[in-house]
């Protein structure tokens, strides 16, 4: 008799409680921030959303600056100075906000990348999101570097010279580009118009790249939690007021300032170039980008089989389509040819094999008759039929306490005992709520569902969907007639095995107080339309 069913090896994910060292470090930091900010407002859990927020701040402040900016050699510096000095409370603030929001944008983007890397979220079905994110780094840097030219002070001149010296190492670029910045009168008003155009066009390309980056996830979070949004804005405004961005002296080809207040976030490559060589910096940065881009194919993970649809059992309800966190389910015309009837189709390359779709399927009810339970959409490696069979065996051998736990959450394996059967699933949202009803009718005294904390879900939305389904707020919902006292839904992250064990003990005591389940509630399987 199996008291534990789990498929971590097939999933390619660490088994509950087993995590690589970088991931452990990231998770420890995140949990510390959870205590400080609350999980919903934890900045480390919404770095991508923060990146979007900072992008919009940069865009909004940039639009304001553009209104007052003079796109001419003679006027650029003066217009920025006027903005900074004469309206420090608005233009000056916007200028500083533009700079610091751009810096914060780059910082959170790099942190976002580092977090996903440490958590191993770059391979398998996530390859597209990872690879499409890499070019955004280049675009962010390009947009920022060009922005520094526009001020046309001595720093701008240095950046212009250094960047063109750097570019001269590439085939197709010559040393004559540098002349624009070192020969008196070489630069024209038209060149400034071009710079402004590039400074607007590159962020537009960046926005397109960010949009592409989100294409394989549904309900992408592009706004941070409200408290975090206002808190980060207040932080940047305070920083802008405390250390306003100012210009150096106007650009002068006859001068090369010895010490420069460099923005190290955007301009780090330029000192590196002077310390080594332009070619070496190109090689290092290009190599790093290529390495990041091919990482999903270097560090490969076995991919479990994608979800499978049974056309005969799919009624086209689209719940799996609505609940899939990775846009892996699409609705197409049903092969039976009935007008207007649709069925789910799984895009294998996008499928995370999380099982959330199987849990969403109305055909996944264990009350259905038939020796073999074939549902509308199912996981080949852990079909609903196998879960039902294991549950029935557990109940037949006297297990009275049933635990459904997420493989990515707290380790429930150790909970198995003489009266308790624990079932590990890739995501707890794979367990249809009707399984609780079924277990209680079949003799279980209680069912405990251990889901990951909502903001710590390996599959983004699974924990949330599970909570909503068991609470009756989302289809398929748990029937109202199910005694809620015999169901407990708890949050238990990977590090919370002890807390989960304590929750189980408390629930066991509560069930003892409630006494044995009411008699006469026995399982009756019913034939569905497809089976009759």
């Amino acid at each position, binding site marked *: 008799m199996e008291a534990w069913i789990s498929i971590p090896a097939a999933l390619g994910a660490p088994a509950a409680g087993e995590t690589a060292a970088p991931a452990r470090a990231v998770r420890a930091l995140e949990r510390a921030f959870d205590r400080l900010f609350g999980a919903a407002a934890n900045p480390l859990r919404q770095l991508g959303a923060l990146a979007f927020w900072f992008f919009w701040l940069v865009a909004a402040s940039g639009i304001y600056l553009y209104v007052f900016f003079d796109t001419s050699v003679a006027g650029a510096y003066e217009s920025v100075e006027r903005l900074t000095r004469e309206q420090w409370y608005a233009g000056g603030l916007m200028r500083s906000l533009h700079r610091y929001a751009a810096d914060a944008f780059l910082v959170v983007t790099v942190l976002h990348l580092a977090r996903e890397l440490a958590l191993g979220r770059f391979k398998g079905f996530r390859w597209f999101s990872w690879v499409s994110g890499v070019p955004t780094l280049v675009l962010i840097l390009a947009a920022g570097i060009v922005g520094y030219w526009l001020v046309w002070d001595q720093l701008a001149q240095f950046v212009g010279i250094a960047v063109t010296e750097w570019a001269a190492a590439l085939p197709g670029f010559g040393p004559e580009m540098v002349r624009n910045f070192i020969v008196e009168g070489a630069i024209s008003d038209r060149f400034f118009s071009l710079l402004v155009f590039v400074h607007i066009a590159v962020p537009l390309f960046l926005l397109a790249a960010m949009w592409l980056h989100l294409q394989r996830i549904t309900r992408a979070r592009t706004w941070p939690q409200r408290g975090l949004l206002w808190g980060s804005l207040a932080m940047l405004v305070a920083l802008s007021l405390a250390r306003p961005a100012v210009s150096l002296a106007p650009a002068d080809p006859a*001068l090369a300032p010895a010490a420069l207040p460099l923005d190290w976030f955007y301009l780090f490559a330029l000192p590196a170039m002077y310390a080594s060589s332009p070619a070496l910096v190109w090689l290092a940065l290009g190599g790093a980008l290529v390495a990041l881009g091919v990482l999903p194919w270097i560090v490969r993970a076995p991919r479990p089989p994608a979800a499978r649809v049974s056309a005969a059992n799919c009624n086209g309800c689209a719940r799996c389509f609505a609940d899939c966190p990775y846009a892996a389910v699409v609705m197409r015309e049903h092969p039976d040819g009935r007008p207007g009837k649709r069925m789910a189709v799984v895009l294998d390359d996008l499928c995370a094999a999380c099982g959330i779709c199987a849990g969403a399927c109305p055909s996944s009810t264990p009350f259905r008759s038939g020796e073999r339970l074939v549902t509308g959409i199912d996981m080949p490696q852990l079909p609903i039929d196998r879960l039902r069979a294991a549950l029935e065996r557990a109940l037949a051998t006297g297990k009275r306490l049933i635990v459904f736990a997420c493989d990515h959450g707290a380790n429930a394996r150790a909970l198995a005992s003489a009266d308790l059967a624990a079932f590990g699933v890739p995501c707890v949202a794979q367990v249809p709520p009707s399984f609780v009803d079924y277990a209680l009718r079949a003799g279980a005294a209680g069912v405990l569902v251990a889901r990951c904390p909502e903001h710590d879900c390996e599959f983004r939305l699974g924990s949330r969907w599970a909570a909503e389904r068991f609470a009756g707020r989302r289809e398929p919902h748990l029937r109202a007639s199910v005694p809620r006292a015999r169901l407990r839904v708890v949050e238990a992250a990977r590090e919370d095995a002890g807390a989960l064990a304590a929750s189980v003990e408390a629930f066991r005591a509560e069930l003892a107080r409630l006494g044995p389940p009411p008699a006469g509630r026995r399982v009756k399987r019913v034939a569905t339309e497809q089976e009759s």
Partner: protein
Amino acid sequence: MSASVLKYAGQGLAYAAFAAFVGYFATHPLYHHLGPDEALLRLSFKHPGQPVGECRQRTAEELAKLPPQLRTPLDCPRERSPVRVRVELDGRVVYDEAFPPAGLRRDGAASGYRRLPIAAGRHDLKVAFNDDVRVSGFTHERAATVTVAPGQVILIDFSPERGGVVIR
């Protein structure tokens, strides 16, 4: 002190730490592009060298064979000479390089760029260009004594309209 006050204080500290990180590295540490007593010598030019061979007068028969729009009396080679540059600073040769003409047919202008930090102060500078492979030695030369302050730039350029070698 209540837990919520501590929590808000912790959040404030986290925001302040992030702001301090961003605020500091947005301008610091200062990058010392040159030493405190250094100036910069820059060589930058863009100049088409002379044709590599002599032009030849076309005969009347040759002209007649050409399409009307191509009937120019002189037949000159397209390829241009590389531009050789030699720079001496205080009697020491710091550059002696030939910069090739641009283009697949080597018929474009040659261009070059070099930068060299030098000590501030007085220097004897001698610059020579050769833009014609048919001439041995140099076609344009200029010598000057320059005094540069720290952070100042001396630019060596080449402009036939301004007499050839330009030092400023």
